[in-house]
């Protein structure tokens, strides 16, 4: 998002293309900056996470910082936008601090672009979690995933998807119990066969002879935990941004590096254990052009890098689960 001069651009490009490639912060072409992740940062949300890429060591500030939070709402199916089985709605908003040079209209456009990619990828019916349904055909959960970009120091899409994945991983769906109202069988029989019905014990309508024994509402049982984890923890993809130079590519670009490459390729992969890697989405951003042969080889490389990111993220998320559940319990017991 930063604008740099022609000579600065040429300088960055030529050092990236030199042998060995040089980057301002001394990283190799496929090295990431430090990624930090913390889940459970928004106590009022059902799941949340904060991701920062490349923050400085001394005060934990700087770098790209993104917070994602998932919040569940009950929705009536067939009433407005409600869909049977629940749905996922994503939105991205940018703090003006992240893009201090953009006008508010430009900021809105940028938010819209990011939202469209996130929403299109995560709300796809094929990866919709199974436990968003409360009562089939009647009530379902609407999952709102809100991502806020607090600062952008490059590689924003990777950060957004990491935060989104971590927040969804962290999401707990409240347990529900179906409730139904029905008249006693004996009363119903009385009502249809004989006219002299005892009004005191009669609970259903005498005119209602339909056999509609159906679940009609739900309640939230009081239970010690916040609910069961959102289904499909394995399906949420990770994003990998490949910054394309004429002959090579590099990962995790800083703002200056981003401004000096003409083309970026975003690949989104998910690696479930039982199926081959799935390419969930792909975007080519920027003003340059690419061809099929190049894209093919990039996809292969992208998959390799994405798997590394995936494994690291998975490990961290499991760590966070431990930290927030098991270890917290132990700490509580050892007090």
């Amino acid at each position, binding site marked *: 998002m930063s604008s740099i001069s022609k000579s600065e651009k040429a300088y960055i490009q030529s050092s990236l293309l030199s042998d060995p490639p040089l980057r301002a912060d001394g990283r190799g072409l496929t090295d990431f900056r430090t990624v930090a992740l913390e889940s459970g940062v928004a106590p*009022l949300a059902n799941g949340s996470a904060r991701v920062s890429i490349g923050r*400085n060591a*001394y005060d934990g500030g*700087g770098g790209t*910082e993104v917070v994602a939070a998932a919040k569940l709402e009950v929705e009536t199916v067939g009433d407005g936008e409600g869909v049977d089985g629940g749905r996922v709605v994503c939105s991205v908003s940018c703090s003006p*601090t992240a893009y201090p040079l953009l006008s508010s209209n430009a900021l*809105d456009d940028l938010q819209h672009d990011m939202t469209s990619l996130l929403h299109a990828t995560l709300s796809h019916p094929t990866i919709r979690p199974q436990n968003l349904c409360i009562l089939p055909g009647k009530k379902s959960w609407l999952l709102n995933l809100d991502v806020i970009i607090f600062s952008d120091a490059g590689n924003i899409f990777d950060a957004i998807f990491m935060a989104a994945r971590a927040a969804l991983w962290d999401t707990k769906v409240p347990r529900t119990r179906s409730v139904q109202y029905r008249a006693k069988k004996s009363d119903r029989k009385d009502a249809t066969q004989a006219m002299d019905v005892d009004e005191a014990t009669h609970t259903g309508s005498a005119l209602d002879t339909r056999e509609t024994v159906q679940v009609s509402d739900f309640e939230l049982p009081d239970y010690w935990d916040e609910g069961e984890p959102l289904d499909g923890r394995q399906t949420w993809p990770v994003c990998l941004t490949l910054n394309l130079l004429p002959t090579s590519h590099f990962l995790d670009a800083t703002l200056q590096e981003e401004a000096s490459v003409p083309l970026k390729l975003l690949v989104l992969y998910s690696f479930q254990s039982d199926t081959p890697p799935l390419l969930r989405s792909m975007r080519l951003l920027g003003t340059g052009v690419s061809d099929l042969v190049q894209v093919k080889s990039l996809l292969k490389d992208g998959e390799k890098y994405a798997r590394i990111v995936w494994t690291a993220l998975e490990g961290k998320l499991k760590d966070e689960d431990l930290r927030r559940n098991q270890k917290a319990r132990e700490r509580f017991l050892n007090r």
Partner: protein
Amino acid sequence: MSSRIELLNAGLLRSDGRRPYELRTLSINFASQGTADGSVTFSHGLTEVRVAVLGPREAKAGSRRETLHDRATLNVEVQLAPFGVGERRRRGRGDKRLLELAATIKSTFEPVVQVHLYPRSTIDIFIHVLQLDGGLLPACINGSTLALATAGIPLFDFVCAIAGGVHGTQPLLDLTTVEENDIPSIVVGVMPRTGRVTLVQMETRLHMDRFEEVFRAACDAGKVLWSEMRDALRERTSDLVEALEAGPGAFAAKEVEEI
């Protein structure tokens, strides 16, 4: 028995266990936020705001005509995280309540910031509310004071704001959402060094006799806040001075030592 929460019980304890004049925990974090010149994450109890100050700088292309020839203009923008409140609701940039909040903050700081030093420029104050549990305006003002100070913008004085209310005849300080919804409340912004007041806001009815009592308590609380905020700022500044004296790489070395 009513199902309403008892705001102040017979033992003079409030719904969250505080005494009437007790303030909630403050936490002040000066971690840098992107390219902002001054930034702070200010949390007061469960209310948490991030404030970033950019400037003084040339105005953005769209608002350049609003700059003044003899002083800097303050530009305050407030955003509310959709997950920060109980009921999720997306408030856009044009939301009336947020605009009003921004206007209040702007008018509070206009007499405090030495704007005459920076003609034809703007100072941006961007506030992001992460969590909301009462005392939004005070948290925004206190956060902005600290962010302006860390940005190195000359101020005549701090502005320390605090909410106060009355339950029955007992004045309370630093209200939570539950209390804010139920009892008459005022917000007072004091300049502790001079003892002047730059902001008094009241949206509910309050008896004259009670007002003075609450107002005085809030002014005193402002001074208490001041000492906390000043200490935090001093600590940061001394860290910076230390780092300057130690030369480059000192922060990294310190980090390694701590590990």
